[in-house]
């Protein structure tokens, strides 16, 4: 597949959409909007997986799509919204890096991943190459989000969006066994559950979701 073919263009468009939503995640100032953007990213990922299933003729990928849509598009965002409502969080996102600098850093990370992936994968199908570059960018942006936010919910969303990048990489490669994706999905659900419990515990003990408040309670402080 190459430029001008429908399969390529749609896959490219969906992958690019996932990446775009990673940027959207980075510049949201309200936590509800962050969760909504994450839900959209999950939905787009599900679409991308479904399209890959159609284009590659791999019905197993439909399962991935359904799972992604159910877990990331619906269930996890709903649960997060529930947490925010129940804990009555300040609805603003507390950033550590600032919106502008994190966007600049995000652009630099995308450039870096393109510089790394494109020369390293010469001779591979064009779709896989660009998909890999997009996926690596999403992964790096998820990590960036984890370190540039103070709020535990935002950090969890950073981790989940990082995982979206991994799924995006997996569906771009033809022949990835289904069990890998299933186990990844199970892992993500576990992470979400643990993170939710953890957030409740933090809130209960310290009356805040700022993970910085944990610092005062570490042992072995010199």
């Amino acid at each position, binding site marked *: 597949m190459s430029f001008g073919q429908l399969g390529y263009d749609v896959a490219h468009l969906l992958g690019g959409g996932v990446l775009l939503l990673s940027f959207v995640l980075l510049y949201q100032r309200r936590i509800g909007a962050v969760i909504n953007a994450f839900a959209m990213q999950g939905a787009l990922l599900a679409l991308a997986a479904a399209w890959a299933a159609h284009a590659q003729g791999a019905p197993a990928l439909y399962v991935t799509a359904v799972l992604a849509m159910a877990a990331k598009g619906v269930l996890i965002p709903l649960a997060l919204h529930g947490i925010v409502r129940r804990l009555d969080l300040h609805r603003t996102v507390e950033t*550590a890096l600032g919106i502008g600098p994190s966007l600049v850093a995000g652009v630099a*990370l995308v450039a*870096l*991943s393109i*510089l*790394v992936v494109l*020369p*390293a994968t010469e001779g591979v199908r064009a779709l896989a190459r660009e998909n890999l570059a997009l996926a690596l960018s999403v992964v*790096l942006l998820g*990590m*960036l989000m*984890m*370190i540039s936010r*103070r709020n535990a919910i935002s950090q969890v969303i950073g981790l989940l969006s990082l995982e979206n990048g991994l799924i995006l990489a997996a569906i771009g490669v033809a022949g990835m066994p289904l069990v890998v994706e299933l186990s990844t999905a199970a892992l993500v659900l576990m992470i979400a559950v643990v993170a939710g419990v953890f957030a409740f515990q933090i809130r209960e003990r310290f009356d805040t979701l700022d*993970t*910085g408040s*944990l*610092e005062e309670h570490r042992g*072995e*402080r*010199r």
Partner: protein
Amino acid sequence: MPAVLTALALLVGALVVLGVAAWPLSRSVLGARVVHGGVALAGLLLAAGGLAGLLGGVSSLTLPFGPPWGLARLALDPLSAWFLLPVGLSAACASLFAFGGVHGPVAPRLLVPWPLFLAGMALTILAADGFTLLLGFEAMSLASWALVAHDDAQAANRRAARIYLGFAGFGGLSLILALGVLAGGAGDVAFAVLRDAPPEGWRAAAVLALVIAGAGSKAGIAPLHVWLPLAHPAAPSHVSAVMSGAMTKVALYVLARFVFDLMGPAQPFWLGAPLIALGAASAVIGALRANLEDDTKTLLACSTIENVGLIAIGLGLAMAFRGADLPALAALASGASLLHALNHAVFKTLLFLAAGEVLHGAATRAIDRLGGLIHRMPVTAWAALVGVGAAAALPPLSGFASEWLLLQALLAAWRVGDLPFQIGVAAATALTALAAALAAAAMVRFWGLVFLGRPRTPRAAGAQEAGGAARWALLVPAGLTVAFGLLPGVLLDLAEPALRLMAGAGAPRAGVLSVGAAEGGARYWPVLVALLLAAAVGAALWFVRRRAPGGVARFGAPGHVMRGPAWDCGFIAAPAHLPFGDPASQPSAAGFGQPLRRMLGTSLLAAREAVTMPPPGATGAARLDAGFHDPALVALEGPLPRAREALATQAERLRDLSIRQCLGLTFGAVVLMLALLAVLGGR
């Protein structure tokens, strides 16, 4: 001849088995004797295998087992065969000595590492791939460390063992890096593969620097020599003998293997310069320290540093000559090195064993508590005199032949390179001559203070000499020292294939009875020199006896020899309560070394002297404090630990990072790696 190599490989295996079996065997006297006798036999077989390898050809062997990524390979070529000689002879003599010293059950910690030590050395020499080489090298290091650390009751020994282990780790790490740089991205460390891709430019320089750091720290090349004077006194005597005689040679073998074989012949001449410079520095520092130490084994360890420095100079010269396409001179320099490696192994083993015999007989290593031992321990004294003469490079003993060849090579080195190199070689020549003279002074001091004069303590006056195996362990290397000194031409002929491997040419042929610097050049006839010396000494003896007043002694009439009192150097007779004379009326170890300490020690070894006078009117004695520090050891124990401490304090701060900062570190590392990949992948 694969049969020889197979036999040698089986011998290494047998030594390992003997090391394991030494644990139960150590309970009984007989068991300890079995272990030491077995190691002595193995040493002899190793030397025999080396001889067979020199006379035969190159053979290689792939073992049926090895590391997970391949099979271990062994090979026996002339270079490794030559280095089996010093290792085998030294280990055989030392083990014979230890055999004679077994009078009760020996502690397992002293017995178990001993066969493993020899097995490690043999495996290093026989290895034909990098992994096996490192395996042997590390086994050798660890086994000898266990032997150095055997007496951990004393703080000085614990310190010595700690420093020794640090150097062993540093050396092994450097060799691993050297192999890595040499192998490049290919990853195969078989010697045959490495030979096909010799390094060039900065890679060759990096390999050389790493090998000098790795093998040099084991051999004792300055400034990595500081462990020798600490570790040798801590180890038992037979172990110090093998550490000095054989282990440093194994390290030099590794150096020669890398430099002359694996790095290929097409290297520039200036790669030899660092070896020449470091060798000259080691020779001078070692010989100077040997003049200042007051512990017999420390003194001998410093002399080892000097001799290793001389061998390193020879190797560096051979590199320079080979790079300048002068194969005959390269053969001369490498011949001097190989010959000196063998000679030094034999005479230093002899000297350490003699020091061990003195330690056993007089219960001390301090020179200031010895003296006059020639009367109580004549065999040890005369055997040590042979070794001392060789270490002082006196003709016709073995040390002279090889040092003469080395000086001939140094004097011929003006043919190489440009002016700076020539000036440097001229300076190295002067330093080598200085080191030889200093070594002679150190040996006079050692032998004179220990064996001549009067006993300085009652314990020295009552010293007892052991007989049996220990005596033979002294007589055999003494005989070999004389034989090697008289027949260096035979040894050079034997080393011919090794020289062809290293230098691409044989040594200048000068017949069996002489060695020569070049065809038609200067020659040294050891047998002739020996005859001349014997004639001169005999004539002098005859003349003195003939001139002696009648009735005292007549030449040819030994029955009439009359002993007079020893000359007391003009001092008044000692009081009656000092039956061995006044100790203060003999030169002490520090006093003997004082002129050299004042002349050279102040600048090179930070020697100091301070006189504390009693206050005016007081009747107390004035006090003289004198001492010196090796600057390398001061640097090792001062700034280095401080830097490590500061680094550790900085690293401790990482523990206080918040979760986000920890994640940020990971993220930064990932981004850095990706950036590196992007930059390097773009090339």
